[in-house]
């Protein structure tokens, strides 16, 4: 997994080449095309070398379709809700984009509500759009309003680590106290527990394990938790 700077040539070549985040294909004047990196990070590729991408950390979310994000409702505009997902533009959520919602029966959101939503449209020239149901099944599948709890901000790489089922942190916290958590790829984590001290402990552990905050490992987190009153 070599480290690359932006602007370096990447030896990606395959019949069905798919370029992931951080890579761009450029065509030169004489008709040849080459793949260059557009950000700094670890260059990775799949086993059969058809998928290539760059693994890097950042703090600013760029929306992409079919990603699960946590949004904060900031305004209402007619039938739609304006939701802040941390990107450059405010996202739009249709009032009826919930499971089983009709004109007479729609969810009662307020300004300041937290939502777990899926980005349905993300194009550089349009503002992003959200939906609160799964794309295939059209059922809620966990999307919708998040009631109560507490929102923690983290880096994008940390939120990707938390979404990985093999990462140690959430199971470790869950073994100490009952915990409900929702992670958005936009660098936001929602935590809900009965005791406020558990929420504080969980948010401090997330900040400590975050690569931006030092990248604490499992042993360190266990010692850290033992200093707290949980």
């Amino acid at each position, binding site marked *: 997994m070599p*480290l690359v*700077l*932006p*602007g*370096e*040539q990447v030896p990606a070549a395959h019949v069905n080449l798919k370029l992931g985040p*951080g890579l*761009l294909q*450029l065509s*030169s004047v004489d008709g040849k095309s*080459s793949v*260059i990196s*557009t*950000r*700094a*990070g670890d260059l990775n590729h799949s086993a059969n070398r058809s998928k290539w991408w760059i693994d*890097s*950390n*950042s*703090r*600013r979310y*760029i929306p992409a379709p079919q990603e699960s994000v946590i949004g904060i409702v900031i305004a209402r505009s007619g039938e739609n809700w304006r939701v802040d997902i941390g990107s*450059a*533009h*405010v996202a739009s959520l249709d009032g009826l984009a919930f499971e089983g919602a009709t004109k007479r029966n729609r969810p009662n959101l307020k300004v300041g509500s937290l939502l777990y939503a899926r980005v349905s449209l993300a194009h*550089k*020239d349009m503002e992003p759009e959200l939906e609160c149901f799964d794309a295939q099944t059209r059922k809620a599948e966990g999307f919708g309003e998040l009631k109560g709890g507490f929102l923690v901000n983290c880096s994008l790489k940390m939120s990707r680590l938390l979404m990985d089922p093999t990462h140690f942190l959430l199971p470790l916290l869950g073994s100490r106290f009952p915990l409900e958590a929702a992670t958005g790829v936009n660098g936001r984590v929602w935590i809900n527990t009965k005791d406020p001290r558990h929420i504080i402990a969980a948010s*401090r552990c997330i*900040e*400590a394990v*975050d*690569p*931006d*905050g*030092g*990248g*604490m490992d499992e042993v360190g987190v266990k010692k*850290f938790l033992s*200093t*707290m009153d949980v």
Partner: protein
Amino acid sequence: MSTTTRSDGRTYDQLRDIMIVYEGLDGVDGSARFGFGQTQSLTSVSGPMEVRPNLEQPSQATLDISVRPLVGIAGTDSKALSTNLKAILAPALFLSHHPRTLIQIVGQALCGTESGSGLGSVGKGWNATLVASLINATSAALVNASSVPMKGVICAVSVGRFPSASAATLVLDPSEAELPHLVGGGCFAFLFSSALPLTPSSPDELPPCSLLWTNYTSSVVYDDTELRQAQALAEEGARKVWAAMKESVSNMERTAQCPAFNRFKSAKTESRVKKDTKNLSESEVDDDKMEI
């Protein structure tokens, strides 16, 4: 080219120790401090983020660059430098990937000129080496942010010209002590990108580079041979800066400040912890020695 050593013992083509620290400033998306020895600058980058309607552009991101000197308020020379920085960055970033957004860059000089170089206000000017450190700090901060797609990395170095009877005496990275003895000089900024065509002189490990901008001036008459020599010397120095940046990226996460760790230590020892600078490998400038 003269082979005499300089006042600090360097050869004509030797840079001072390069220091790159990714500060991890709060509230911004990327930040970096770059220094040639004592000449340091700090830059922060935020974006792509929300833009005011009067600055919005329909097909590309807007660059908003502010540059601040160490002493005093930003005057005409700082404003001119931010305009130059905008012209340097525009070809190096893919601004069309994020239309109707803002990329906000703030550059801060971390040292004044104790010598009074004669450029701008005495003791407060932007000499060529400080300009080079600012451009490199901006480049490193954009690399740290990883949110704005970059065509390549910009590396800048300064070249100074000593007076001599015969041929021009050019030196790389003139220090503050050498500035009063120069009769000319300037900063050269290069873009290192594989999107540029390969030239016969480019080495294999580095992407090809091309000159983006220079402010080389001289108080004595010079010809284009001298300018080409200065550019060639600067290109060698820029390659070393690129290599230093590449090495620093592998330490990017480790050089960040760790607020959680410091709080953990204070919880354990139950006393106020002094915020210690994390940098283990690169040389650090002592706070006492920094000019305020």
